[in-house]
């Protein structure tokens, strides 16, 4: 019997886990970036130069914290929610092509898989919000559930337009089809996708489910220690995967231009540029209100996404792309 395929897929899966955990470094990166935006230095003390070991210090602190489960909480929901949050964040990486051959499993329904898995995270918000038995948490949970549809629909519709251009649901095929990056052909689709993706990530200006100034910490108010860290980690993992999907669908993924760099380097450069932009947005904008987000989703993003599909159809009809 040939053991290689099995061994190979285990190695690939482990690499993905390492990659996701390495993104914990983004905690430090974001704090430095936030510091720069706010005319301060950010973490400087733990590790020289520039406090690079801050993430480890954070991690040790979180690990050594007491594991608190509120007495009135729904115990199983409460305990399961962080895991449910973290799993889809990991699963998305399964279909993302880091390079022409660097993909764990190039599913022929990659795009559908992504949209199915990412909307999973709302389930964990709701579990934690309901399970905590806290009024702020449950308000955060309801917000998360209410806003889900408003951004999920435009998100999927803008992905459909990409699929129409590429003629395939596999992400690797989509990258191969981009002799011109799709952002050039459908800038509207990209903008819709970007806004909806930030909303999906629950980051400012759309962090309604967390909303520190209103709901204390929203759905994760009652969490502390490593359970809280899992929410935090999955947020960063989701940020990177959303950026990776943006790079893949609209900016040619691992395809390079001008410089002869390895495909994986191109992919990572594009991805982290989007990570930076998402952080930039977070430290610049105030938060929208729940009704304003719903209005934005249904009255603006949805028509624009539909328009984009019509435009893509026209492109296909006229130019036979």
């Amino acid at each position: 019997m040939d053991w290689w395929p099995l061994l190979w897929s285990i190695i690939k899966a482990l690499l993905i886990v390492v990659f996701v955990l390495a993104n914990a470094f983004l905690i430090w990166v974001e704090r430095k970036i936030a510091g720069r935006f706010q005319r301060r230095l950010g973490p400087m003390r733990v590790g020289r130069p520039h406090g690079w070991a801050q993430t480890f210090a954070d991690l040790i602190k979180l690990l050594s914290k007491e594991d608190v489960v509120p007495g009135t909480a729904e115990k199983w929901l409460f305990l399961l929610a962080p895991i449910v949050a973290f799993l889809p964040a990991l699963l998305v990486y399964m279909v993302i092509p880091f390079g022409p051959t660097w993909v764990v499993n190039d599913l022929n329904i990659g795009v559908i898989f992504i949209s199915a898995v990412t909307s999973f995270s709302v389930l964990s918000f709701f579990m934690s919000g309901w399970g905590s038995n806290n009024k702020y948490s449950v308000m955060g949970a309801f917000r998360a559930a209410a806003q889900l549809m408003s951004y999920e629909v435009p998100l999927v519709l803008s992905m459909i337009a990409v699929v129409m251009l590429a003629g395939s649901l596999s992400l690797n095929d989509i990258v191969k089809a981009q002799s011109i990056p799709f952002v050039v052909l459908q800038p509207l689709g990209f903008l819709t996708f970007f806004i909806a993706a930030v909303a999906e990530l629950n980051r400012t200006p759309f962090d309604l489910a967390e909303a520190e100034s209103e709901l204390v910490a929203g759905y994760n108010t009652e969490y502390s220690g490593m359970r809280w860290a899992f929410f935090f980690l999955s947020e960063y993992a989701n940020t990177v995967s959303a950026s990776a999907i943006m790079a893949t669908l609209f900016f040619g993924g691992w395809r390079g231009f001008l410089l002869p760099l390895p495909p994986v380097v191109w992919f990572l450069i594009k991805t982290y540029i989007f990570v930076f932009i998402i952080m930039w947005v977070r430290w610049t904008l105030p938060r929208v209100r729940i009704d304003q987000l719903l209005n934005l989703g249904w009255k603006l993003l949805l028509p624009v996404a539909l328009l984009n599909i019509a435009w893509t159809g026209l492109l296909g009809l006229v130019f036979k792309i």
Partner: protein
Amino acid sequence: MTDTMHLNMGPQHPSTHGVLRLMVEVDGERILSAKPDIGYLHRCFEKTAEGLTYPQVLPYTDRTDYVAAMTNEFAYVLAAEKLLGLEVPARAQFIRVIMAELQRMANHLVWFGTFALDMAAVTPFLYAFRDREKILDLFERASGARLTYSYYRIGGVRKDIDAEFVRMAREFLDYFENQVLPEYHRLLTGNRIFELRTQGTGYISPEQVFAYGLSGPMARGSGVAWDIRKNEPYSSYDRFDFEMALATGGDNYARYTVRIKEMAESARIIRQALDGLPEGEVMGKVPRVLKPPAGEVYVRIEAPKGELGVFIVSDGSTKPYRLKWRAPSFSNLQVTEAATRGEKVADLVVTVGSIDVVLGEVDR
């Protein structure tokens, strides 16, 4: 019909500006009523004052509105001087105005930062505190303290300001007018999300301004032209040329524009005061023991948050028989319920932020 939910916002909550508790009744996200519950920071200031001599009361006034300590002292010394019939030298009066207007700017900077923070815009908060730091440096140079100054004295001010202070103040004003204000406008004013959040929320009608006894930027944001510096000039305010910041919107955005405009006007006043600073003493002729005649006096000034009134009853002894502190935050806070009824939970936070409460002053 769904059940409504009672939500206790505070006293421990990230955006209740201290220890304010709001008893909120919500129907989903909609607010049915929001009643402020106060008293968590009550320190018996008024009663304590009855056991202290007139000069001894002064440091306590710092601790009412601790974000704007200078103006508290201003109101108190004006009241005590009126009671005692004391004359204040012209130079001291100018210095008092300089300090009061710097304090107004510092107060509005703190407000600007926390107001943005209530909408999750963290960056303006740190910018505002960076700039407030420069004002605190000025205060430190003049009085030696950075938060509770005890700089005003009955009869004048404690210490004269030196040439270095004047230079630093001018430098700060240049920096403020040329860099800070344009930067804030770029950062927040034109932001579409900021406009969506503030325009049309927390509406207060001019009638409500009178009904609730609102004052300061709360009144001027609703189009009520009431600025005690203009309407009843005290100290030397009648000698300066400045405009009353006024907006007619009555919503959170109107109050925002009023306060931003006020900072610019304060800078104008300070410039004029620095230019025309008279020479001479900074303390008038004050007897060693302050023993005012029996009687009562009410003095009000335009504090950064509104009308700050001090009512003192004297029985002819060295201690006030009764001292009443009419705090602007206390009166302004009452309007919370009327201004937020029917709005969203998110608006409640913004509207309470726009009232600019300091709980040290509400509870005293």
